[in-house]
């Protein structure tokens, strides 16, 4: 083991490749997609579906962690995996391109990640194969409910087993489902996706009774009732999904169908957060870096040079701001890298994972806010992308656990407190 800070070749190659994607497939349509909220950038989606296969990832593995795959791969047995590091870099670069478009990259996203993390080998095979198909295919995670946000224990969606048909009958309301429309509704351009729905199979058991269910696109009783109009990441469809007695095959439950009075199942979901938080953080860093680079470029175009190395007393206000932004972006990225490196090295990273999310949510907000301010009348104008990134950025500190929830997680880890000791 050693302390070092250099990307291995595959990571550099992936960054180079995705930089090209960002430059050519994302940035040129960013503004148009933002202005036409519910339009779909088919060009990007189809390109990525092909490109990811060319990159040897192709399925959920590309944009969701796939530890299984790596540990199965004998060639990788001897050196530590870099799968998460690779992924974080890919996501950072895509988000640098357009974080909204990144969110609708085909491959299954969080839905596939859930199957990957909590499904049996049979389930993985059954549900994940589709992401290797010709058509771009989506899957979505349905967790949040109108009255249950950060407090997932308040989830009201119920799954009841119909003993006669051996089907789960699921009823409830889900909101904030990323890619919910593309995953569930019929789009001729896309393959058949699914949604993963969190529901209780035994409300009296609290969190121990929580399970997730794979629900195939088009299942009767399930309906996308609304696509949200959002501040930013407008190209990403955020759906409300209503389930009214939706019938789901018994074997679509992820995890055990019986309830033990432990919260293992739920902790599984929380462990997914440990894996996904640094990845979300990576996307925040991508947006922040985009804004920082654009500010420097626009300032340079105006003849403004940033002098580094000076005492603060000799800096201009803009120089001080830009240097602080650079510190923020750089340190947030290092925190992401540490968290994913730990994941790759099978080290528990609940603390570092949440820390990276706290940091990223914080800095992407500050950096984009400062970027718009520095550019004055130009920063605020939709002629440039800075104002869009300001809007896109804010979601980083909200989804996958708000900054507040992640501070709680960090504090509990630091203090050695349980959830009941520090509420």
């Amino acid at each position, binding site marked *: 083991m050693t302390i070092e800070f250099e990307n291995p070749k595959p990571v550099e190659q992936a960054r180079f490749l995705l930089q090209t994607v960002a430059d050519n497939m994302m940035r040129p349509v960013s503004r148009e997609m933002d202005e036409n909220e519910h339009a779909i950038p088919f060009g990007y989606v189809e390109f990525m579906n092909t490109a990811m296969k060319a990159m040897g990832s192709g399925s959920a593995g590309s944009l969701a962690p796939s530890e299984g795959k790596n540990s199965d791969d004998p060639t990788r047995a001897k050196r530590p995996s870099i799968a998460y590091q690779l992924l974080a870099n890919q996501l950072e670069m895509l988000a640098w391109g357009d974080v909204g478009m990144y969110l609708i990259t085909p491959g299954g996203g969080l839905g596939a990640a859930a199957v990957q993390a909590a499904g049996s080998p049979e389930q993985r095979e059954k549900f994940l194969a589709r992401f290797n198909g010709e058509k771009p295919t989506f899957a979505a995670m349905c967790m949040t409910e109108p009255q249950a*946000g950060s407090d997932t224990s308040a989830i009201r969606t119920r799954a009841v087993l119909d003993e006669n048909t051996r089907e789960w009958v699921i009823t409830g309301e889900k909101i904030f489902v990323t890619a919910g429309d593309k995953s569930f509704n019929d789009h001729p351009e896309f393959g058949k996706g699914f949604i993963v729905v969190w529901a209780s199979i035994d409300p009296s058991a609290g969190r121990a009774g929580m399970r997730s269910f794979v629900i195939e696109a088009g299942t009767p009783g399930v309906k996308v009732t609304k696509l949200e109009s959002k501040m930013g990441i407008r190209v990403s469809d955020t759906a409300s999904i209503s389930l009214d007695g939706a019938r789901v095959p018994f074997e679509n439950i992820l995890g055990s169908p019986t309830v033990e009075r432990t919260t293992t199942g739920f902790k599984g979901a929380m462990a997914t957060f440990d894996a996904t938080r640094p990845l979300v953080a990576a996307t925040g860093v991508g947006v922040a870096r985009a804004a920082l680079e654009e500010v420097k470029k626009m*300032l340079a175009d105006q003849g403004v040079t940033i002098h580094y190395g000076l005492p603060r007393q000799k800096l201009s206000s803009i120089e001080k701001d830009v240097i602080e932004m650079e510190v923020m972006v750089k340190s947030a990225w290092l925190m992401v890298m540490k968290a994913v490196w730990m994941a790759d090295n099978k080290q528990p990273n609940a603390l570092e994972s949440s820390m990276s999310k706290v940091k990223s949510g914080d800095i992407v907000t500050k950096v984009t806010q400062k970027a*718009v301010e520095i550019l004055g009348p*130009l920063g605020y104008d939709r002629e440039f992308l800075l104002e869009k990134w300001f809007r896109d950025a804010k979601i980083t500190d909200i989804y996958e656990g708000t900054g507040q929830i992640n501070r709680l997680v960090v504090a509990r880890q630091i203090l050695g407190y349980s959830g009941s000791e520090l509420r």
Partner: protein
Amino acid sequence: MYGFTPTEEQKMLIDAVARFSKSDLRTAAHAAEEHKNLAQRLVNKGWELGLLQASTPDIYGGFGERSSVTGVLAAEELGFGDLAGAIAIMTPGLFVLPILLAGNEQQKTNYIPQVIEGSWRPFTSALIEPSFDFDPNALKTTAKKVDNGFVLNGVKTYVPFANQAEAMVVYAALDGVTKGFIVSKNITGMEVSDRIKLMSLNALPMYRVTFKDVKVPETSLLEGDFEPVLAGMRVTNAALAVGVARAAFEYACGYAKERDAFGVKIAQKQAIAFMLAEMGVEIESTRLLTWEAAWKLDMAKEDAAHDAYLATTSASDMVMSVTDRAVQILGGHGYIRDHPVEMWMRNGRGFATFTGLAIV
């Protein structure tokens, strides 16, 4: 003496503004922003509150003396309702007040009554320029003295209602010093762009205006100092920011007291409660800075312009922070446009740039 209570007269006016702002401006704000269209009916109704008229002496068609204190009280209320609506209603003031402050008697008589006496009509002004370090005291738009007048050259942006404006005050550097010039519509060399698109204020029609060798007569020059005009714009900007911040703050308080999580209301969590406390403190501190600066303007204190600058500096940071935290408190709900806080956050970032869009 110190005092922190409006006069009875001010109270009556402000109450009327507050009622209009809450029941009319606020309720229309969401649709106006989404459909990029502010109902003229609403603007007219706001105009009829008579804020500008109450700031204009009767010899020019109004019924009062300008009071910056009254003005900032009203501006806060309007901003609390809806920023785009507030600016639209106040736009004719951008034309009238600079003439009142810096114009000569003839200019006042010629221009002010026609604006003041009728219903709301598009008179505006052009100050902001499309450069990152736009500085109202170092304009890139120039005025050059020529025989019988001046020639204007330059580009302005963020000009409300420029496309339909019957006249506007255009600010330009005359020998390096910012001066206002009255420019009527359809003047040769002036070109109005398509409507510009900003991060917010979609309800408000704003334009880029280019001046290419625009010849204006000598009588168009506002000879008076620009400083009190700019100071007036700055306190107004600050007051509008306080209004927007208060809107977001109150909305977030209400939400936090309703929203359950982990068995309690989220407002009962220190993390949320402390944010709200700090938001409250910051709003109040900027409000008081704004009031004091306005009072100093009214008293023609030497450091009034200085204080106006401090107030708008404070306001820009405060409103960004408060509106950002309001979105944060609403979480995912703060991010969707069904709730108004995300719009206030978009408004919020703009105050670093909005000085010049309104004046009281």
